[in-house]
């Protein structure tokens, strides 16, 4: 009898561990998903890491692709936000500069965070950004407007079959941070 009770206890412990382990697994899915998407680039999220353009000269190929620029403003975000150019025809490997225009329409300072998304999803990891307003939160005073730049190049590894890509920024309200420190950060003197 006691042997059977021991076996039961063992099973109980194992199964409870399994249940708790699966709970942990469900939370682990969050970073797993991030890593999986970053490595395969398949959900269209570009990296938030600044890319330093290699100093060795990259053979700029003749290959050209079209890149389109899109802007979205989330609800409750009182900014005007649009790309200054709708699309560019660029050479793979060549460094390009474009910008987005943003204006705070409201009567108080607002902090915004732009979140990028690239389509097709698997082109995301080939879009290398050297400088981007999406890397940090951006603060604008009431009524203030700014041109925010994006400096990027497209990696030669971009698959052959992709020749049009779309980069979209969705602008959201970021939590209020110290207005002064942010104001300094986005307006370097």
């Amino acid at each position, binding site marked *: 009898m006691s042997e059977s009770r021991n076996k039961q206890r063992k099973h109980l412990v194992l199964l409870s561990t399994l249940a708790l382990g*699966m709970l942990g697994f*469900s*939370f682990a899915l969050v970073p797993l998903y991030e890593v999986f998407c970053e490595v395969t680039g398949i959900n269209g999220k570009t990296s938030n890491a600044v890319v330093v353009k290699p100093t060795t000269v990259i053979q700029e190929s003749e290959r050209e692709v079209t890149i389109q620029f899109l802007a979205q403003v989330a609800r409750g975000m009182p900014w005007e936000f649009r790309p200054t150019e709708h699309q560019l025809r660029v050479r793979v490997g060549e460094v390009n500069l474009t910008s987005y225009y943003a204006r705070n329409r409201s009567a108080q300072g607002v902090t915004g965070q732009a*979140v990028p998304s690239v389509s097709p*999803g698997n082109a995301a990891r080939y879009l290398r950004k050297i400088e981007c307003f999406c890397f940090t939160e951006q603060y604008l005073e009431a009524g203030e407007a700014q041109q925010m730049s994006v400096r990027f190049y497209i990696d030669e590894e971009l698959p052959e079959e992709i020749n049009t890509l779309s980069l979209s920024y969705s602008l959201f309200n970021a939590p209020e941070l110290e207005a002064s420190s942010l104001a300094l950060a986005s307006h370097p003197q």
Partner: protein
Amino acid sequence: MAEIAGHTIPNRSPLMAFLERWFLTTNHKEIGSLYLWLSFVLFFIGGAMAMLIRVELFQPGLQYLEPLFYNQMVTMHGLIMVFGVVMPGFVGLANWQIPMMIGAPDMALPRLNNFSFWILPFAFTLLTSSLFMEGGAPNFGWTFYAPLSTTYGPPSTDFFILGVHLMGVSSILGAINIIVTIFNMRTEGMTLMKMPLFVWTWLITAFLLVMVMPVLAGAVTMMLTDRHFGTSFFEAAGGGDPLLFQHVFWFFGHPEVYILILPGFGIASQIIPTFARKKLFGYTSMVYATASIAILSFVVWGHHMFAAGLPLAAELFFMYCTMLIAVPTGVKVFNWVATMWRGSMTFETPMLFALGFVILFTIGGFSGLMLALVPADFQYHDTFFVVAHFHYVLYPGAIFGIMSAVYYWLPKWCGNMYDERLGKIHFWTAIIAVNMTFFPMHFIGLAGMPRRIVDYSIQFADFNMVSSIGAALLGLTQVLFLYIVIKAIRGGEKATPQVWEGAEGLEWTLPSPAPLHTFEAPPQFPAPQEAYKHE
């Protein structure tokens, strides 16, 4: 003094004895009954919500329900049927039957068993009370995608989250209890490969429950922290992703739908051999097929997300794995047919429901296979074609499974035969009603009607009307079923121990009704022929 089930209880008024019995019971038969009655009550509540939906969809135009309330009905109907009817129904059957079928006196953890049950009435009271809260009940579909549920959900969403946690705990504890019971308490000589198939399917289902209910708990917890504690798991604003919600939810959700059907497979595998008077064909294959279905169920979740923006490689992977599940499922169907083949069949009500289950579940399986084909799915996804598919596998699937089990085992539970004539009437009207309700949904889905809509374009009107009439008829058949069950409990032709001529298994060696305490000493297995008494 009170007298209950052969026990004399001193110093208790009958009322107190009654309350103590039902709140504190640790007996698997009583707890089984509690689960089954809870399931039946919620079946009527969820069914009433379905009736409201079908009344509104009887004709195009907004007649009776505000869109906000309609959305609450759609959501609550799904939640109650999935978590409140099918799952407790199968757990009730497990509680009643598993100990008897393996020759055990009770479940391994009787007090945990009581606790697992009693969580549920509280959870469902919480959930249904949300209908009366400010902002109404959850209204974002039973699949509660973010951000509709996280950012835009009504205040009652937090109660919904608590309710889901409670139901999840109940399921996990119940499943652990079932596994420990099956592994440890089988009578001498009953190896795993000699267990009744109902016990096998429940063993596998219980493992699925232990593994995926925690994932659901994780999903709703992330939802809670997104709503109130500043996280952004599912919102792009904070670096999150609404699609992550879908991945986590369906990682739970797909195994969940197999949880909703595997015990039904087990039930058919008990009933068909009995009424064909022939052993189940391919027992070993049936076990392996069920296990394969369970394992494969973990790698197909993406087929709910084909239109969401998955990359090509993922779509192909999920398409192939989903198609593959058709193979073990087909094997099971063929094995049931082979069991019938050259048997000696009679068609009492349990057999009628079991055969209806096999045929109509298979039709649901066919539409499932069609849905697996991604290019075609772009036309079927989120239309009534999907609604038709899952109602076929859930209603003539899971629900007919439960009904056939109730007809099959009720004489064992209460000692009286149910009224066979009424049972047949129930079956035939249910078959007609279920097809009248859900078959037209295939066509309106193909014609282009999306799901979860309160109003629709006029080209969908005719079939919607047919479906609503069928639903009304279906609702009436449930009332008949309730009447049949209550009538049998109150009296009827006395049932013999074996009840059914071809029945084999330890439970059929017990008297009918089975006494409160059975197999206090482990029985001989296999049971000798003399153990099956006919009077």
